[in-house]
């Protein structure tokens, strides 16, 4: 089982993620914003990071993803990004169809179903390390 870091500013989403991932046998750490999450990633060295795209401002999650990718210690950690951005921004962001523009490995759309979350997590953890 894996060490997973969840970064989201909504305490109820954090609660959901923690319960779901722990029930599947993972060890979970959490952080309420991008800055704290990045700091925690450096010490916790997780196997996977679940990252909300939209924290205090619309680009915070995106910035955090770039920070992670720019750091030698954690740059290869798979990132699963939580979004609910598509409907809100229409065509401004086409995240799902274009993960190449963002340094993340996969997306989960909110509201998150625990089944989908666990499937995506297992798939990412099974991927051979780059």
């Amino acid at each position, binding site marked *: 089982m894996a060490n997973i870091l969840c970064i989201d*500013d*909504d*305490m*109820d*989403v954090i*609660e*959901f993620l923690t*319960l*779901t991932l722990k*029930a599947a046998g993972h060890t979970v750490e959490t952080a*309420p*914003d991008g800055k704290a999450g990045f700091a925690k990633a450096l010490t916790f060295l997780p196997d996977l990071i679940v990252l909300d795209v*939209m*924290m*205090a401002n619309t680009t915070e999650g995106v910035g955090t993803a770039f920070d992670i990718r720019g750091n030698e210690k954690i740059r290869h950690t798979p990132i699963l990004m939580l979004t*609910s951005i598509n*409907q*809100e*921004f229409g065509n401004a962001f086409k995240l799902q169809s274009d993960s190449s523009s963002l340094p993340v490995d996969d997306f989960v759309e*909110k*509201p*998150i*179903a*625990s*089944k989908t979350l666990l499937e995506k997590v297992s798939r990412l953890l099974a991927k051979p390390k780059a």
Partner: protein
Amino acid sequence: MYSELETLKLAVVDDELGIRLGVSSILADMTMDIPDVGCRIRLQVSSWADGESFVGSLDSNVPQIVLLDSKLPGIGGMEILEGTLSKRPDVVTIMITAYATLESAVRATKLGAYDFLAKPFTPEELRVTVRKAIHHHVLAAQARRLMEEKRTVRFQFISVLAHELKSPINAVDGYLDLIRNRMLGDELASYDGMIERSSLRIAGMRKLINDLLDLTRIESGQRIRNPEPLVLEDLARAALEGQENAAREQGIRIDLTAEPGLSIHADRMEMEMIFNNLVSNAVKYNRPGGTVQVTLSRREDQVEVQVTDTGWGMSAEETARLFSDFVRIKNEHTRDIPGSGLGLSLVKKLSSLYGGSVEVESEPGVGSCFRVRLPFQLSSAGIGGAVLKETDHG
């Protein structure tokens, strides 16, 4: 005074060389001041001997104003107006008509021309007509800009609102998913916490919708306002009472110091909103065992409501963001405190509605102080009676 010198492009399309040369030389060094928008206009004139080459030039270079001869050898002025120019509503067209007949002028106007000049025209006639067209162009451009800005603001507002409404739905959806999948086993009591949190999130969403309606009603002037003389101290006391329970839970003390005789002529509910928001914030964002000091005083022709707390405070960057819709400062202290982020925005809108103001001073780790100033009205023996003159706050 006219800080901006703007160059507008004017094209003259006429097969008569005399007209082209005349227009170019008359308009070449004309400048025009537009006081309404504080800019000075200069013209850059280009001329075309036939319709085809003018239409061709539009792909790369669109003038703001066109002087267009209605009778041209090839494609005629009316055709250009009806065809190419009809797709460019921002171009101001002045038709040059050979025969000063009413019909051709009416027809050109129907096709979208702004004005017309009848040949032969004097330099002064030309200048007057072009001046009018420039003025029209500048005001229309400004109106378009404002409309565009309004659309952007509206789009941003709706985007943020959508996010604020979706967050609680997502949270509740998550809990329902866990309950549906019996993530904590078959014991119903294990899910009490999730059900409680779900109720809280739904309550928060309901509050957001109600706050939003209040805000919109006030902004759009839909709310019927009943200005009446109000004793400031009574308003403050009612707000303190409203926060009593919340304060007691946190061991927070609230003190009120009021200069006697302060009153204000205002709508009661709107004043209650100001007081409630400030006092509730001072309690919500305070630390356990902290204090809230409410001070009412007179500042010349205004009354000042000052609410000081000993809470977690805010940095300068954070206070700079306050007073806009949905702004919430997120940190470890505020994370679990529910709110819509509309309270201070409402306080600001209401204060300005009454010709007042709101300001904040805050220091991280020490506390915050919010000050609202409103126009003062002398409180006399006649509070609530007929002695006070009705003043119009409309």
